[in-house]
């Protein structure tokens, strides 16, 4: 055993009972005043906090937030190219890998290009999503990512949790340097990356606004429509 349980019998001072009681009360009072009158070190890394005066280990959540680590699986986003169009080429890899089947894609051909495709519709049902990150791992173009560091926001309607390409396409068009998601190294040069970053739109509030998309819009109705079209 690495250590043994220390359960010796009480000595004379402890069996007198009152010195121990007053010592304990004194400790509580001392800690209370110390924590009440000295300000708390707001460092989110609790192990590195200055504990000389105030020893409270809490993070006052809505005001203070512990930053999410790189690689945290948050809300999805579609990565734009530098010109704002999605990187996605509608290859259906993410929709195939998704164990919850929450991704719906409709592919379209880029005008004037005999090869290139793009997603006409790209819908993620965040209520069905199990936040596993398989879509990010499956993507060959690094076009879908979960690096927003946001949670899917609370909504009043179920439609509000269905994210279409308008809400998903946001954020910087870059691959971060130390990125656990990135399997293949970026082919962009450093100068091109810096230019991309400078030109990037910041994370907008578009994704959080449930009214920014068509009401009554759901991946199931879309799938039913598409099935009807192909049948006819």
């Amino acid at each position: 055993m690495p250590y043994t349980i220390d359960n010796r019998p009480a000595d004379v001072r402890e069996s007198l009972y009152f010195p121990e009681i007053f010592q304990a009360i004194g400790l509580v009072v001392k800690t209370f005043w110390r924590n009440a009158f000295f300000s708390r070190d707001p460092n989110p890394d609790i192990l590195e906090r200055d504990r000389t005066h105030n020893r409270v280990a809490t993070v006052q959540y809505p005001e203070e937030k512990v930053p999410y680590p790189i690689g945290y699986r948050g809300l999805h986003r579609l990565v734009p190219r530098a010109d704002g169009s999605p990187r996605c080429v509608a290859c259906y890899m993410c929709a195939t890998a998704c164990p919850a089947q929450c991704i719906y894609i409709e592919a379209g051909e880029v005008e004037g290009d005999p090869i290139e495709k793009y997603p006409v519709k790209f819908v993620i049902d965040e209520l069905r999503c199990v936040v596993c990150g398989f879509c990010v791992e499956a993507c060959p173009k690094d076009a879908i990512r979960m690096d927003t560091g946001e949670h899917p926001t609370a909504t009043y309607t179920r439609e509000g949790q269905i994210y279409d390409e308008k809400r998903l396409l946001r954020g910087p068009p870059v691959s971060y340097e130390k990125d656990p998601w990135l399997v293949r190294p970026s082919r962009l040069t450093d100068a091109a990356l810096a230019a991309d970053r400078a030109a990037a739109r910041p994370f907008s509030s578009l994704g959080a606004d449930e009214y920014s998309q068509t009401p009554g819009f759901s991946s199931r109705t879309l799938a039913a429509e598409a099935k009807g079209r192909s049948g006819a």
Partner: protein
Amino acid sequence: MSKLVLRRLDRNNEEMLINFGPQHPSTHGVLNFLVETDGEVMRRAIPDIGYLHRSLEKIGEMVQYPGYMPYTDRIDYLAAMFANEGYAIAVERLLKIEVPKRAQYLRAISCELNRITSHLVSIGTMATDIGAVTPLVYALRERELLNDLLEALCGARLTYNYHRIGGVAFDMPEGWRDKVLAYLDRLDSSIQEWDRLISTNEIYRKRLGGVAVISRAQAIDYGLSGPNLRGSGVDWDLRRDVPYGAYPDFSFEVPVGCGWAGVVGDCYDRYYVRVLEMAQSSRIIRQALEKMPDGELTAKVSRKPKPEAGEVQSRIESARGELAYYLVSDGTERPYRLRARTGSFMAMGIIEDISPGLMVADLVALIASLDVVAPETDR
């Protein structure tokens, strides 16, 4: 419950039938116990499970082999890493894949970290159930720090989805190793703090010592496993006796209950075995971080594996006992049958046999000491 035959109660003797749960804070989830009482003494307590059934085994037959991994997280929300590992090992045996050494070490580290978080919740809630509210706050404080580390490793705090068929998903982030070592130093001292705070507390020892004794033979007969079995004095640990993964490389001891506060197999033994196991987990993680080899993170596995027809079983030592997966393949890309054997479900069976003669308040101590988690029971 229609098939359950209830004994006719003797009204002259103040016998009552009480529903304990399903919305009771001490039942650790949505569990129901039908308790026949005579005053404060229980005649019998019958567990009524199934409130959290989510057909996780049936889902396994619907999704492809790699796609089931995020669903295993939901089997036991306090110890998701073990469910990941057990499933990964089962499919690897089916596909006959050799896991790279580095992946095995990362698996061992992540699982042992998760064992510490799970045991911290277990011992903290146990103290709260008995009536000592303060220790829970201490336990959850330590667990929060550890959850931050696991979040940096896997990208989520509870539903890790870290293991993959043939390895693990990510390597350690930069600086993570030093953070873990700093945390383990803190943990070793906080276990001693924990001992001073509650383990050696005379009231706590007297409250739990000699209560709800499960004898060695009973524990084996009912198929208890993990800390519950070791609390009853049986020296059995799958990590040492049926080694898997990287565990043969580490030296660690298996704590066994020896009647610290009364009889072997009482609530205190099951509780204190968990405290000692946390220190052993800390030892294993230190050794693994020290010996960590370089190499690949995953073996070469097809994205859509189609194993040959056959059946396999995997057994691992989870925080709640033996976690076994039984997989039957019919040669397609989905399992024909998936079955999970979980420790909590086995522990529920013994409650009906142990409960006669206990006080009603002791039922809370018994459930807490068995570390029953409702979603793992029901799956």
